[in-house]
């Protein structure tokens, strides 16, 4: 076994060891639990760093596998690791973001009674995601895919005593499961056709051995899983509800793990999907519609975490657009920068929420948000990246996506994507201006009141510093990451030697102008003197409720699928309780009563028995005499 493979195994299994250690032995020792989890993920980060240094070389691909349960003539199921620049970079991003979130959670979750359990689940989540990223086999990938779903279920429903998080966790699990059924079917079809599911062989077979029709069917089925996991198209409504989990969990869920898994899968199997161009075209349009729809929802949401959730959906759509347009480098580059700035946004939002004890942006603005320096820095840096303001990471990666779209996506798609970018800039600006406070009269009053009560108590505690450190590191990264574009392009699309992720031209100017317009509009509505602090979409009641309630998709699902399912399960429950249980209860009751009736014959009087014996013998004798001797 070579060095990189060992490093990959170490990176993958250390978090599981930490998780098991915490969940079994450290349930009542919070400090030890946090230390164990952080130590575990630090080992992972070091190992993945080594991987990036050794494996992230253009064109390199290392496959190390071990046969699992070999069956003669059966499908060859080998489990192992597949190391190439994509998996190495992704593993590093996962380990890095997880570490940031874990350090931050030391402050954010301090004093929570489930603190050790929280760290156990975080480590479990990291293990599942790293396993998914490094998997060499599609079946193995599916296993970890489901484990990622399980871990996010556990973390979204972390405060399961309250009904809302429990319901949100259930919804997340079930909705992603709808897509996972398609994924499973796709994997089974592939294994049936090829007898093997090793990723490089699948990609090679897509253009050679498999029929084009089968490739298309499998591509659609696999994309169902992607749509569920990455919250696209009709299956996105679980993601806004998933905000019921702790804020650092949202940061992890939205940046490097859960939702990124879908995008990662498309990047991983890009060669396979590329063999089904019609399906990719469909994915492109689905992602476009999702991007625009979720951007409109973000424009009216009042809860800062919901704004961020919708923005995640929208940004994931951009990544999928880039992948559908054929550029792995642009899509993965946007995934990486997004992981950085979305984790940053959630972590800084968490600082405000921790301070104001409310998710509502207008309420946060009444609790002197400007005093939380780290939060302000993080929010502004993250929102600039999200909007695509020039020197930040988001600007470069979004330009790369738009360039990819402009190359192969067609003019209409490009125009719509740019419109989406303008909307993104608008809601990012709205979020910052609403949260940090405008010049509304209500805030002036709150400020004068707040200044007397808050002055003495505001001194950064240990927990505050633990929360500020990751935010500041990520803020700095947001400024730097954008320049890594060529690094990604060289490693992820080595065949396109001259592909430029980004070049300055008319298209870039247009995009910049749209972003500026979006930001200016948000300034006009939320920040200038005498600003109404109510957005244009919020003023129209019909639009407000339409956008605010996920385009009524939840109502549609409630009225159709959910209602039918509930009715069906009621019928099944009735069948179970009344028909099946009734039958077995009836048999039992009949036996008991039959026994009681028969027991009456056994009265204990010898003479009664004797009388019965004599009468039976007499009757037999009479019968024998009457029938006569046998012939």
């Amino acid at each position, binding site marked *: 076994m070579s060095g990189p493979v060992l490093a990959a195994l170490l990176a993958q299994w250390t978090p599981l060891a930490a998780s098991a250690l915490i969940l079994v032995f450290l349930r009542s020792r919070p400090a030890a639990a946090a230390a164990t989890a952080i130590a575990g993920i630090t080992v992972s980060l070091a190992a993945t760093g080594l991987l990036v240094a050794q494996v992230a070389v253009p064109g390199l691909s290392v496959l190390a596998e071990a046969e699992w349960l070999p069956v003669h003539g059966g499908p060859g199921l080998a489990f192992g690791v597949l190391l190439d620049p994509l998996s190495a970079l992704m593993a590093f991003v996962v380990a890095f973001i997880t570490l940031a979130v874990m350090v931050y959670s030391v402050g954010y979750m301090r004093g929570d009674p489930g603190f050790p359990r929280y760290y156990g689940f975080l480590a479990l989540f990291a293990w599942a995601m790293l396993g998914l990223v490094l998997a060499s086999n599609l079946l193995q990938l599916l296993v970890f895919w489901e484990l990622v779903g399980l871990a996010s279920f556990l973390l979204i429903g972390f405060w399961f005593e309250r009904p809302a998080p429990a319901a949100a966790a259930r919804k997340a699990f079930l909705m992603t499961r709808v897509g996972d059924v398609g994924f499973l079917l796709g994997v089974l079809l592939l294994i049936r056709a090829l007898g093997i599911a090793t990723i490089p062989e699948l990609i090679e077979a897509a253009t050679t051995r498999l029929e084009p029709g089968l490739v298309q069917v499998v591509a659609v089925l696999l994309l169902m899983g992607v749509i569920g996991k990455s919250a696209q198209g009709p299956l996105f409504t679980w993601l806004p509800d998933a905000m019921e989990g702790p804020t650092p969990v949202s940061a992890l869920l939205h940046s490097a793990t859960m939702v990124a898994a879908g995008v990662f899968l498309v990047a991983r199997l890009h060669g396979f999907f590329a063999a089904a161009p019609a399906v990719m075209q469909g994915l492109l349009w689905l992602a476009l519609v999702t991007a625009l729809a979720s951007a409109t929802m973000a424009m009216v949401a009042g809860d800062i975490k919901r704004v961020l959730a919708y923005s995640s959906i929208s940004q994931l759509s951009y990544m999928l657009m880039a992948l559908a347009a054929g550029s792995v480098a642009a899509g993965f580059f946007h995934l990486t920068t997004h992981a950085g700035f979305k984790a940053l946004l959630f972590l800084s939002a968490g600082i405000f929420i921790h301070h104001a004890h409310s998710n509502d942006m207008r309420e946060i603005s009444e609790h002197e948000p400007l005093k939380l320096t780290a939060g302000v820095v993080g929010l502004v840096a993250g929102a600039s990246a999200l909007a695509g303001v020039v020197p930040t990471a988001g600007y470069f990666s979004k330009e790369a996506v738009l360039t990819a779209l402009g190359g192969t996506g067609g003019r209409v798609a490009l125009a719509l994507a740019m419109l989406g970018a303008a909307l993104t800039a608008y809601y990012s600006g709205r979020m910052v201006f609403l949260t940090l406070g405008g010049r509304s009269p209500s805030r002036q009053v709150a400020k004068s009141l707040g200044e007397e009560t808050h002055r003495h108590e505001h001194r950064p505690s240990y927990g505050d510093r633990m929360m500020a450190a990751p935010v500041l590191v990520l803020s700095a990264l947001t400024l730097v990451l954008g320049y890594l574009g060529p690094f990604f392009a060289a490693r992820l699309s080595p065949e396109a030697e001259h592909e430029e992720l980004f070049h300055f031209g008319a298209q870039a100017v247009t995009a910049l102008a749209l972003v500026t317009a979006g930001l200016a509009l948000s300034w006009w509505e939320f920040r200038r003197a005498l600003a109404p602090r109510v957005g244009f979409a919020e003023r129209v009641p019909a639009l407000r409720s339409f956008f605010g309630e996920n385009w009524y998709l939840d109502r549609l699902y409630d009225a159709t699928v959910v209602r039918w399912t509930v009715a069906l399960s009621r019928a099944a429950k009735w069948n179970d309780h009344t028909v099946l249980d009734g039958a077995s209860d009836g048999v039992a009751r009949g036996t008991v009563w039959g026994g009681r009736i028969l027991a009456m014959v*056994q*009265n204990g*009087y*010898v003479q009664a028995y004797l009388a019965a014996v*004599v009468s039976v013998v007499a009757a037999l004798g009479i019968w024998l005499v009457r029938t006569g001797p046998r012939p």
Partner: protein
Amino acid sequence: MTALAAYLGFSVLLFGIGLYGLLQRRSLIAMLIALELMLAAVAVNVVVLTTYAGRDPGAGQVMALVLVGVAAAETALGLSLFVAIHRAQATIDVETVSELKG
């Protein structure tokens, strides 16, 4: 009416009286006496039918004597059981001996 019918009629009468007593009396000792009557009816039948079947009449009489011996043994066993029951329950009424009912 032939002599055989008379013998057998006597035997049936004896058996019927015994059966009536067995089912009617409540005292265990009276029931045992009734049982002896039924056994005697059987012994009469053996003697009569052996003779009328043309076999050696001595065989039937020997069998009757064996039956008397068996009856004596049975009576000894029954009486000792009744004594034990009387010691335990201070009565030998058959209706009080009903603890094994279902």
